[in-house]
C-alpha cells in the first residue's frame, strides 16, 4: 500500500535502496551523507533488508568494494560527500570503463580546504568527465525516485554505466520533506532484477580488464562515448514507465516552470530550485515575465533539450553552485555547457552565470530578485555586462 512519509533526503534514499533490494552496501562516515548508511544499517540489523553491509576503510575502498561486488553480480550502493568523493577519484574511470553499474549517492559538500560541512555541487561536478550518469534531486521525493530510476537506466544492458545520484547536502539530505513511498509491487514492476552479461562466476570464467595497447585505448573510450549516446533513449523509456507506474509527471531531462510567456529564465539544478520557484511566483505577481528551467541530468548532458527549452528566452541566468577556477567564464561550469548547447541556434539568448549558494549558504529570495534585475538590465541593454556575477559579493548591491 503506497504511503506518505516525511523523510530527509538520506532516509528517502535509504528507503529506495531497500525497496530496490540492494545486496551489497559499503559504508564510510562523512558528513552529510552518513545518515544514508545509518538508516541502511538499522534496516539490515532489523532483518528488514537482506544485504551484506561492509564497513569500508575509506571512500576509495567503498568504491572498490562495490565494484567487486557488482562485477560478481550483486546490486550495490555506496555514497559519500565532499573530499570523500574526491578521495575515491581513482576508481571512477575503472568502474565506468569496466561497465559496472555501481550506484553512488552523493550528498554534496564543499571541498576542503578547510573543513566546510556546507553544500556545494563542486565535489560531484569534478568527476563528471569519468563516464558516470549524473543528476541532482531537488527534494527528498526526487532523491527517492532518482535512486530507482538510476538503477533501472544504469543496469540496462544498452547502457551499463555507474551512476552518481546527487542531492544537496543538508538542504535535501537533512531537511525532511513529503515522500510518497510506493508499494513493493510497483517497484518490482519498474525495476527488473540485476544481471550482468559477463559477471565473475567460476562456472563461466572471464578475464575482466587485461592490459591493452594504446590504439585499443581509443576503442575503450569510444565504448563509453557510445554508451552516453545510447543512454538518453533509455532514460526517456525509464521515465515514461516511472510516470506510468508511480503516477509522477517527470520530464526526463529538463523541467520548465512558468516559462510560457517568459522573457527570461533561471537555469538551475538541485535544492535551490525550490526557493527559485517561490521567487518566480512573487516576481510574476509583480508582472515580471520570468520562469525557470531545471536540469535533471548533468550526464548525459541533454544538449537538444536545453537548447530547445532556453531558445525561447531573451536572457538566461545560469545559477551555479560549483566552481571551475580558471574556466572560460571564470565562474562555474554549467554556463560553459549551456553556451555550448546554444551555440548553433540562429537566435541565442543572452547568458550569464550567477555564483550562488557556494560554501553551503542558502540562496535567499532577495538574491533571486537581484538576479532577475540583472537579467532585465541585460535585455534592456541587449547585452550582458559580465559573464559571471558572484552574488552577494558584487560592488553594486
Amino acid at each position, binding site marked *: 500500500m503506497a504511503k506518505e512519509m516525511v523523510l530527509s533526503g538520506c532516509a528517502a534514499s535509504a528507503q529506495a535502496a531497500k525497496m530496490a533490494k540492494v545486496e551489497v552496501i559499503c559504508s564510510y562516515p562523512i558528513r552529510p551523507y552518513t545518515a544514508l548508511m545509518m538508516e541502511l544499517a538499522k534496516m539490515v540489523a532489523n532483518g528488514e533488508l537482506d544485504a551484506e553491509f561492509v564497513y569500508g576503510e575509506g571512500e576509495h575502498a567503498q568504491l572498490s568494494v562495490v565494484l567487486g561486488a557488482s562485477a560478481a553480480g550483486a546490486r550495490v550502493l555506496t555514497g559519500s560527500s565532499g573530499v570523500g568523493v574526491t578521495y575515491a577519484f581513482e576508481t571512477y574511470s575503472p568502474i565506468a570503463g569496466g561497465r559496472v553499474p555501481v550506484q553512488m549517492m552523493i550528498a554534496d559538500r564543499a571541498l576542503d580546504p578547510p573543513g566546510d560541512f556546507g553544500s556545494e555541487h563542486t565535489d560531484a561536478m569534478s568527476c563528471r568527465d569519468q563516464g558516470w550518469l549524473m543528476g541532482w534531486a531537488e527534494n527528498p521525493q526526487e532523491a527517492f525516485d532518482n535512486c530507482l530510476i538510476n538503477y533501472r537506466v544504469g543496469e540496462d544492458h544498452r547502457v551499463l554505466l555507474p551512476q552518481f545520484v546527487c542531492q544537496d547536502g543538508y538542504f535535501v539530505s537533512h531537511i525532511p520533506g513529503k515522500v510518497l513511498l510506493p508499494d513493493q509491487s510497483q517497484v518490482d514492476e519498474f525495476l527488473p532484477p540485476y544481471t550482468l*552479461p559477463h559477471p565473475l562466476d567460476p562456472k563461466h570464467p572471464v*578475464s575482466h580488464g587485461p592490459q591493452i595497447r594504446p590504439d585499443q585505448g581509443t576503442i575503450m573510450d569510444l565504448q563509453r562515448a557510445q554508451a552516453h549516446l545510447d543512454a538518453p533513449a533509455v532514460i526517456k523509456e525509464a521515465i515514461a514507465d516511472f510516470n506510468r507506474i508511480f503516477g509522477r509527471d517527470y520530464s526526463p531531462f529538463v523541467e520548465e516552470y512558468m516559462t510560457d510567456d517568459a522573457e527570461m529564465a533561471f537555469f538551475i539544478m538541485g535544492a535551490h530550485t525550490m526557493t527559485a520557484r517561490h521567487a518566480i511566483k512573487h516576481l510574476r505577481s509583480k508582472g515580471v515575465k520570468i520562469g525557470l528551467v531545471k536540469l535533471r541530468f548533468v550526464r548525459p548532458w541533454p544538449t537538444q533539450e536545453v537548447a530547445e527549452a532556453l531558445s525561447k528566452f531573451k536572457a538566461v541566468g545560469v545559477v551555479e553552485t560549483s566552481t571551475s577556477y580558471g574556466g572560460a567564464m571564470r565562474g562555474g561550469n554549467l554556463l560553459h555547457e549551456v553556451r555550448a548547447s546554444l551555440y548553433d541556434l540562429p537566435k541565442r539568448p543572452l547568458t550569464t552565470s550567477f555564483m550562488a549558494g557556494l560554501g553551503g549558504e542558502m540562496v535567499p529570495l532577495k538574491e533571486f530578485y537581484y538576479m532577475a534585475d540583472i537579467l532585465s538590465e541585460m535585455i534592456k541593454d541587449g547585452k550582458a555586462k559580465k559573464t559571471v556575477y558572484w552574488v552577494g559579493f558584487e560592488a553594486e548591491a
Partner: protein
Amino acid sequence: MFTIPKEKEVPLGCITPAPVTEQAMMITGNWREYRPVIDNEKCNLCMNCIVFCPDACWQLNEAEDEVVWNAKYCKGCLICVNECTSGALTKVYELDFEDGVVRLEKPF
C-alpha cells in the same frame, strides 16, 4: 557518430574470454636462445621440470610415462635444466635445430 573497424574491436568493458589450455594470443616460443632437450633414458620422473616451469611447458604423458615438452611456449629460461636431478635435461642452442625458432626483431 563513429564507426569502429571490425579488426580493431575490443570486447565491451574490456572483458575477454578466459583461456582453457593455452593463451594463443601470447606465443612465447620465439623467445628462446637455448632449448632444453631431454634424454628419456636418463629421466627418473622426479617431476621437477614439470613443477618448476613457470610456463607449464613440461607435462607428464602418463600413458608413455615420459615428460613432454611444449615448443610453442617454452621461453628457454632453463630452470628445468638447472633443477633436473638425473642429468636427463641439457641445453642446446636453439638455432642448431632445423625447426629452431628465430627470435623476432620486435615483440609483436
